[in-house]
């Protein structure tokens, strides 16, 4: 008999037009001392299942069917009763430690309140228990930190406090909903190690909800895969990842960028996949192709950027050195990767290259022209035409008030005001088809498209000026893996056929390995090392690179 048994769980959201089944007849069991990974892409219903267990589903959702049996007791039989299990038997950890804690209560107050809600302890005993717990989750000086407010902790430390709060009444089931998604790789591995350690020491049953196959491979004992509310497949991690039975699981696994080798394209496994062949890049005819030279297209020389906290008084104390003396160059036709954790300055460098920010010091040369010294508007427009950018967030990168047609035509009209409307339409259609969108898309608005399709519109807009350099700032990190694989394939095809130079910015090492020829690693605004991709992954020189490579979750770890 397993410790937790979810039987035929269905969750419905009654919406205006239809009822959405966020979970359909889901059956999952979890044993004590085991971590069950619950994976799926956005909208798969994985978080819904997690919330349904403790009956905390957002309006207008509700559990329409099924039972949840914990330790032999159906805890949903009496809805009033479930409150008693929250915190006492079941602990929950949320994704974002920044918002999970009450900002105006000290962590001690929050811990003591939770402990006293469930356990019959006086204040002193509760405090002792809380301090021991804080020590257990790895918070130093627990006695003094006890009286601190949440804002006095860093992100990783805060997540440790959240874990201690979830565990303070010794629950036997822990539900962790994307507990490391908001954290950097190095902190992610610490938190995952902590969860693994606690599972073993306390003999917990853990449900780890995540979208990251690498995290699953490294932590979960068993995996359940969900798609559109259905449980697709469930089984031991190794078996499921190496020998997936269902088509969906297969495509999910093959979409994950491998960390140990470079592949030319991602295999897309889908049921109605008609044209697996190279994309038909129609705009090729319009493209003025540059002959491949061995010249540097971009040169960055001792670039620095300082942000002042207070713009009113020039003070050196508050200023943050976001980028510190960085130099590199990119050859024409090359794909160059900038890698680093949050705060490494990688996006700031990108924004300086496209001239959204002015550097504090240092120079940027594009095609031998010093970008920072461009004065006239005409010169600037000429420069703008040659560099375009693709952004991380597919939702904010398109103006929701404009039709796709108007979004894509804006750069064309701006750089070629005399274009006739017939030519313009043809051009727009060619662009849309080149990124695998239909002509009909032109008349529609961005909100009618999915995240991946929006990213394609973004690419079409960027290609409209026929740029030589395409800056991609985390272009796929907001997308699901299967969509990521498609977009990465598209970018590769475009680069090959149009001979684009690409500056690819990412925190995701496996993705960078697939996309780039050369890679620069950044930490806290400083350059750690630059080398060719395969060299970097096989024999990294800098300690930080070594650490990053060691800590990144690897799906291949399952083969060991």
């Amino acid at each position, binding site marked *: 008999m397993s410790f937790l048994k979810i039987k035929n769980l269905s969750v419905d959201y009654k919406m205006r037009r239809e009822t959405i089944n966020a979970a359909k007849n889901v059956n999952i069991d979890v044993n004590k001392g085991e971590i069950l990974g619950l994976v799926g892409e956005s909208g798969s219903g994985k978080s819904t299942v997690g919330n349904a267990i403790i009956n905390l589903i957002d309006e207008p959702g509700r559990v329409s069917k099924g039972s949840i049996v914990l330790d032999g007791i159906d805890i949903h039989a009496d809805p009033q009763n479930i*409150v008693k299990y929250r915190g006492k038997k079941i602990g929950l950890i*949320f994704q974002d430690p920044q*918002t999970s804690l009450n900002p105006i209560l000290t962590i001690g107050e929050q811990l003591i309140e939770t402990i006293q809600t*469930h356990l019959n302890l006086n204040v002193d005993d509760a405090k002792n228990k809380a301090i021991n717990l804080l020590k257990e989750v790895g918070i130093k000086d627990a006695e003094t930190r006890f009286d601190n407010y949440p804002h*006095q902790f*860093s992100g990783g430390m805060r997540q440790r406090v959240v874990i201690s*709060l979830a565990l303070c009444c010794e629950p036997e089931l822990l539900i962790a909903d994307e507990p490391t998604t908001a954290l950097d790789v190095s902190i992610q591995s610490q938190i995952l190690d902590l969860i693994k350690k606690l599972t073993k020491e306390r003999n917990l049953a853990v449900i780890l909800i995540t979208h990251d196959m690498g995290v699953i491979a490294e932590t979960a004992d068993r995996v359940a895969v969900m798609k559109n509310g259905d449980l697709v497949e469930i089984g031991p991690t190794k078996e499921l990842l190496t020998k997936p039975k269902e088509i969906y699981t297969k495509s999910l696994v093959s979409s994950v960028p491998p960390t140990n080798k470079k592949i030319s394209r991602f295999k897309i496994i889908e049921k109605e996949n008609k044209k697996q062949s190279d994309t038909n890049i129609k705009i090729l005819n319009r493209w003025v192709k540059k002959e491949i030279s061995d010249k540097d297209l971009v040169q960055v020389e001792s670039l620095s950027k300082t942000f002042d906290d207070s713009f009113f008084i020039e003070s050196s104390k508050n200023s943050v050195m976001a980028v510190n003396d960085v130099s590199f160059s990119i050859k024409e036709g090359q794909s160059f990767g900038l890698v680093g954790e949050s705060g490494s300055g990688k996006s700031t460098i990108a924004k300086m290259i496209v001239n959204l920010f002015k550097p504090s010091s240092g120079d940027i040369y594009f095609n031998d022209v010093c970008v920072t010294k461009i004065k006239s508007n005409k010169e600037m427009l000429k420069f703008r035409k040659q560099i375009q950018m693709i952004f991380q967030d597919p939702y904010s990168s398109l103006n929701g008030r404009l039709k796709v047609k108007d979004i894509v035509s804006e750069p064309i009209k701006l750089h070629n005001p005399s274009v006739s409307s017939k030519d313009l339409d043809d051009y727009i259609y060619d662009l849309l088809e080149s990124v695998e969108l239909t002509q009909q898309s032109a008349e529609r608005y961005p909100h009618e498209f999915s995240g991946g399709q929006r990213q394609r519109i973004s690419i079409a807009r960027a290609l409209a000026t026929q740029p030589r350099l395409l800056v991609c700032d985390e272009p796929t990190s907001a997308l699901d893996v299967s969509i990521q694989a498609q977009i990465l394939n598209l970018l590769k095809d475009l680069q090959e056929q149009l001979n684009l130079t690409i500056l690819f910015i990412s925190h995701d090492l496996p993705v960078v390995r697939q996309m780039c020829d050369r890679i620069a690693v950044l930490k806290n605004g400083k350059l750690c090392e630059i080398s060719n991709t395969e060299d970097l992954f096989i024999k990294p020189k800098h300690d930080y690179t070594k650490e990053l490579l060691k800590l990144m979750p690897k799906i291949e770890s399952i083969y060991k």
Partner: protein
Amino acid sequence: MVMLVVAFVSFSLFNFVGDPINNMVGEETSDEERDQIREDLGLNDPVHIQFIRFTGNALKGNFGISYQLRRPVSELITERLPATLELVVISAIIALVSGTLLGVYTGINRKGFLSDVILAISLLGVSLPTFVIGILFIYLFAVILGILPSFGRGEVVDLGFWSTGFLTLSGLKAIILPSVTLSLFQMTYIIRLVRAEMMEILQTDYIKFARARGINEKSIHYKHALKNGLIPVITIAGINIGTLIAFSIITETVFQWPGMGFLFIQAVKFVDIPIMSAYLVFIAFVFVMINFIVDILYYFIDPRIRVKSEAVSG
């Protein structure tokens, strides 16, 4: 800073709006006499000297003589001040206490029948101009029922520096209608703000997390949510008192309450500049004091301001 700006504005008002001499003397005054008065008043001095003198006088509480009433402005103000302050303080207490309570109630019980009723009334309250409320009250309680006085302060007790209406029955009766009238608009406003604030906080992750830990609803509402919800109420309260002083102009007119607002509205009608500028300086002073107090309260209530976050590596 703000005080200086206001002082300058009221000084300009004093000097450049209309010809002060024209306002002071009759038509038949000869040009020589006018020049003499001008010289006596120091109006021929350079502007900055005049400004310094104005500020100096203002600091001493000297704002000149009212054109219309021909009495020193400072005297008029001190005479009227207690009436306005008593009215405003009573109204502020009514508005803040009941507004916050009802706001919290409707924020927590979002779907109850009582909440709907309170909300509908509060929306009506925002739509009712203060003077209309006043007129309705007068008609109902003074004309039809005849239980409460419709104008004036009733009997007041003079304490030397202060004349209060709190010590006599008629004084207390007289303040009921004006203070309720004045507070009603503000109260409905506060209800809506507090409700919105509570609803937003109840949606946050930390409330969800508290629920997931099994903390009971009572503690979630009154310990976790309310404390966070009350932080913005401090700002609201500050603005609220300022607004009440301004709106007391209307209430005082409707109820012929012998306060500063009544004085001010007469001044606007007769372009009595000294009173206008003195009132302006007074209001600005009150606002600056309120802002100062609000800032201090924030410091004590919000740990994010009080306790600086240390740089801790994670």
